[in-house]
């Protein structure tokens, strides 16, 4: 069988899909009476031109990398983890507890402790749906969605009744001690007196998310466990033949998935808000599904897709700030991106494959 070259498969197809998505987004913007060119310029200016814009874009990217990886790991075991949102919320509780109650001497230790706590809490939240799926066959899509709502309620209860300092009005925990403050990009990269990255929330957790990409890549393609997970994902009957326990893999894959989703809260709760607040996840758990879909469940793809969605998130915020285009429109654009890169992928891929086939044949002839 003739095949497309790798570069076409990995870059050309998503690029064309993106252009299509951009085209239809432009139509929508035209439809509500705004100029697409202006809107696009504004998004690029706001998200990519200035360093502060980048500081926001990369902050969102960090979130999406974690949640995208979470969805991808589960998906390699053919489990659809829609519970990233809830797992990230509960991960945040873990972060808050270790930061509030353990006196960390230095941020470098705090981030380790917070990561472990976030991973453990996120994994624990994923464990129940995983166990129910593995042992009782309760569908993981349903249970993880339900657990998002439960997580939201648990978080609300904890913030209002338990973690809220007396006398404070908003549902949030106390601020974390100064020693746990993570260096942000401004502190890390800006030369003395420079305004580079000033005020932007991107912080050292971004590098943690890159490490997570490497971790997932090694785990899935280089280890026994990854082999087990992929085998089980491709064929449960074959996995049984090989002596791979479906129960074990279902639970383990979901634990890792939940841990990764939970670790997103290191970025939001420890890195940005520096206290536990009610809606720090901002739907990143759901965007992770789109990121994993577009990134084809591969860490490199996820990194690139997360950058794109980070750009959309920040650019969308800019749009809402400076134009009459409502912020919701960004959701429309995101949906179009997902539609074209994910669901309608074959619409672009198949004609391209044909094109390459005929080109290849002409060369051979």
């Amino acid at each position, binding site marked *: 069988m*003739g095949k497309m070259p790798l570069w076409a498969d990995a870059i050309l197809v998503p690029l064309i899909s993106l252009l299509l998505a951009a085209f239809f987004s432009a139509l929508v913007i035209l439809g509500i009476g705004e100029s697409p060119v202006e809107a696009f310029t504004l998004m690029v200016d706001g998200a990519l031109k200035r360093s502060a814009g980048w500081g926001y874009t990369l902050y969102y990217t960090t979130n999406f990398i974690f949640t995208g990886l979470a969805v991808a790991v589960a998906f390699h075991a053919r489990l659809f983890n829609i519970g990233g949102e809830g797992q990230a919320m509960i991960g945040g509780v873990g972060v808050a507890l270790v930061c509030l109650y353990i006196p960390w001497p230095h941020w470098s230790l705090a981030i380790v402790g917070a990561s472990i706590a976030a991973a453990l809490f996120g994994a624990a939240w994923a464990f129940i749906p995983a166990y129910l799926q593995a042992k009782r066959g309760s569908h993981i899509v349903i249970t993880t969605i339900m657990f998002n709502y439960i997580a939201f309620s648990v978080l609300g209860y904890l913030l209002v009744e338990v973690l809220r300092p007396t006398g404070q009005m908003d549902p949030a925990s106390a601020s974390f001690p100064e020693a746990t403050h993570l260096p942000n990009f401004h502190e890390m990269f800006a030369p003395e007196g420079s305004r580079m990255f000033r005020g932007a929330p991107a912080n050292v957790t971004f590098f943690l998310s890159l490490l997570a990409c490497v971790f997932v890549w090694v785990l899935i393609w280089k280890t026994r466990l990854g082999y*087990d997970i992929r085998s089980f994902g491709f064929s449960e009957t*074959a996995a049984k*033949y090989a002596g791979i326990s479906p129960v074990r893999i279902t639970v383990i894959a979901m634990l890792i998935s939940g841990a990764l989703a939970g670790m997103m809260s290191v970025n939001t709760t420890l890195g940005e808000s520096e206290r536990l607040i009610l809606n720090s996840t901002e739907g990143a758990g759901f965007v992770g599904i789109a990121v994993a879909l577009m990134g084809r469940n591969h860490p490199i793809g996820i990194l690139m897709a997360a950058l794109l969605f980070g750009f959309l998130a920040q650019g969308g915020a800019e749009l809402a700030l400076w134009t009459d285009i409502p912020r919701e429109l960004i959701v429309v654009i995101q949906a179009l991106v997902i539609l074209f890169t994910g669901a309608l992928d074959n619409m672009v891929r198949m004609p391209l494959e044909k094109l390459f086939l005929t080109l290849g044949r002409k060369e051979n002839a």
Partner: protein
Amino acid sequence: MAAPATPAPLALELRGISKAFGPVQANKDISISVRPGTIHGIIGENGAGKSTLMSILYGFYKADSGEIYIRGQKTSIPDSQAAIAAGIGMVFQHFKLVENFTVLENIILGAEDGALLRPSLAKARKELKQLATEYELNVDPDAMIEDLSVGHQQRVEILKALYRQAEILILDEPTGVLTPSEADQLFRILDRLRTEGKTIILITHKLREIMEYTDTVSVMRRGQMTATVKTAETTPEGLAELMVGRKVLLRVDKKPAQPGAEILKIQNLRVIDESGVERVKGIDLTVRAGEIVGIAGVAGNGQSELLEVLGGFQDATGSVQVNGQELPLTGAGSDGQARRAAGIAHVPEDRQKEGLIMEFAAWENSVFGYHHEPEYQNGILMDNKGILTKAADQMERFDVRPPHPHLAAKNFSGGNQQKIVVAREIERNPDVLLIGQPTRGVDIGAIEFIHQQIMNLRDQGKAILLVSVELEEVLSLADRVAVMFDGQIMGERQASETDEKELGLMMAGVSGAQKEAI
């Protein structure tokens, strides 16, 4: 060849059909002519281009060049609707039936007359009755597909084609899933269809079927039509040579067995499946070193469950011993990895669903099931480089074609997929080899090779348990044959002292003892 005075035009004529997939020339300048009222066989190894040719005829692919004539009319077939309109019916190897629809509903599916089903169903019921009497194609129109035997499901496929007024019926490997008696019934039906003037194209790799039932036969090799001959004027050996391109040994070269100690000992084995049905009802069986024990039987009589228990993915009660060691049959220590540790290797019945991960590359599949062994680890990582090197070497030695370890399993032909599985299991040097349907969907050249490998393993003193629905295969490979019927063993025979007839009776549930009484 055709006499110019022939009054009836050819039922089907293909002229110069070519089709390429990228650099692969799947069909190259193929011409066939088929007379009406005949059975025309098309034989060739897997990957020879038979299916591509039939897919072109049925409108799934468009030929790059060439012409199709049906009843003398030049016809273009852009899609399957056009093929049906041209009177072509296709019975696929894997049936395209809706499991939880009735026979009648399946037959009208896609051929409903209007938005309301009732008139179509009534019309179909009437026509079905007529077809049933005309061609002896009896099927209960109200039966659910999932409740029908495979043989009957196939009849539904044939009825579907006839209901759509097919004059030319293409059958792709129709006996691959049938028992010997079901296959006989199928050929009786085909014979009847032929007498009624229908034209039948039979795609198969089984020489016996070609020799017994076809009028003419075309041989394909590597995308080309190497010969078209009258069946009466050829021999199996001649056809095999045309197919493979070299002389082929059709019989297994079998030295007398020298059975040694009891290696695998099964006592009172019982299996109850998830729905509470007892599938295996107390089996006793022993396999000695240096011996092949064949299990014959119609599919679904407990053989699969027996293999699954021994392979470690089905719970059971009773006792199984390997080298005197009792194996746990449920819970911890009863999974596939524990079985492999106990010295059991297993070539499963269904290589695509069990034996291989189709999306994995060949090298990844070369350790599937053994991937936890320390020799494949490199610290906390897997020794992917080492596995790759070994896999490349193994593929070379087992003649897997193409010998590319990076190719995904799904891109190999059935025979080569099976070689990957057989190589993996045999190379572990197991004490016991379980092997289910070793040559299902495997071409002649590969069958010869796989049979030889099994024989070699036997001669090295290994205990081999063979399950196959191909009676011929069981008889030619096994030293001892046990027949399973309804979860029980009806009797055991020395392969040299029995024949297809006696085994066929036992497979139908007539026990050895009963037969002796008669």
